[in-house]
């Protein structure tokens, strides 16, 4: 009998996912860059300067301001991020990656796994992408029906 299609197999799949995600960030030391800090570094790399204020970062990550402020402060202390006055709002500050911040992103832990996926045959990549997307959408539905869109949408 195939192991696929029963609860045991489904639970094992989730165990594997959980384990893979945990192992992506091998260092648990407080001096290591934490997952939220990596998310912020990736955000700053990708977004235009007018979106690099703390409020936009928090909105993007679905967080309140406080944890984002703390993470930005830590990244700034480590020389990975710098802050400037916003060009559009004197009261706001925008954040940018420093050269060290750009360099550290080259060792972003998720890239190791992304490269593994990219090395698969295309049909496996497509199947995986479709499956993980379905799971992500289903998991979000478990959190409840959308009741309110954010920010003028």
């Amino acid at each position, binding site marked *: 009998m195939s192991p696929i299609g029963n609860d045991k197999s489904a639970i094992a799949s989730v165990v594997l996912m959980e384990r893979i995600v945990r192992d992506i960030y091998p260092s648990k030391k407080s001096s290591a860059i934490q997952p939220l800090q990596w998310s912020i570094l990736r955000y700053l790399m990708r977004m235009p300067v007018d979106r690099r204020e703390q409020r*936009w970062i928090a909105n993007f990550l679905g967080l309140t301001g406080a944890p984002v402020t703390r993470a930005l402060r830590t990244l700034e202390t480590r020389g990975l991020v710098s802050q400037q006055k916003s060009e559009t709002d004197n009261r706001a500050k925008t954040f940018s990656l420093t050269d060290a911040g750009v360099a550290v992103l080259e060792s972003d832990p998720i890239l190791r796994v992304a490269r593994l996926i990219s090395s698969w045959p295309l049909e496996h990549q497509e199947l995986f*992408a479709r499956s*993980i*997307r379905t799971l992500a959408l289903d998991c979000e539905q478990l959190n409840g029906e*959308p009741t309110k869109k954010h*920010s003028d949408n």
Partner: protein
Amino acid sequence: MVSRPRSILIIEDDLDLRRLLVKFLASEDYDVRVADNVANAMTELFNGVRFDLAIVDFWLGSETAVSVIDRIYGELPNLPFIVISGGNDVMDLELTQAIADISGAISFLQKPFTKSAFMKVVGAALRAN
């Protein structure tokens, strides 16, 4: 030789934003059509008009636009699409952007956005095609 205006489909359920985006694009001579839900989007996409770009709001009411972007990706492989979203109580934007990326979106734009940010993304998408 006169080239035809670039044709853009906006799939957005918010009337005010839809009107605003039409105004932005029409001011730069794009030919713009609109759809406000999944069913109308499918009709527009497959009614014979050759679009150069689709702009897709990720949340159309309480449903996602995944079925729309899957049909674009699968059946209109030469049509680039931009996903726009402000997120909602269920799904944050980091996840929404990942879903857009994995689904083949050429770009993702976080709402609200300025005209210049919007036009910049539209221009880049059209040039890339």
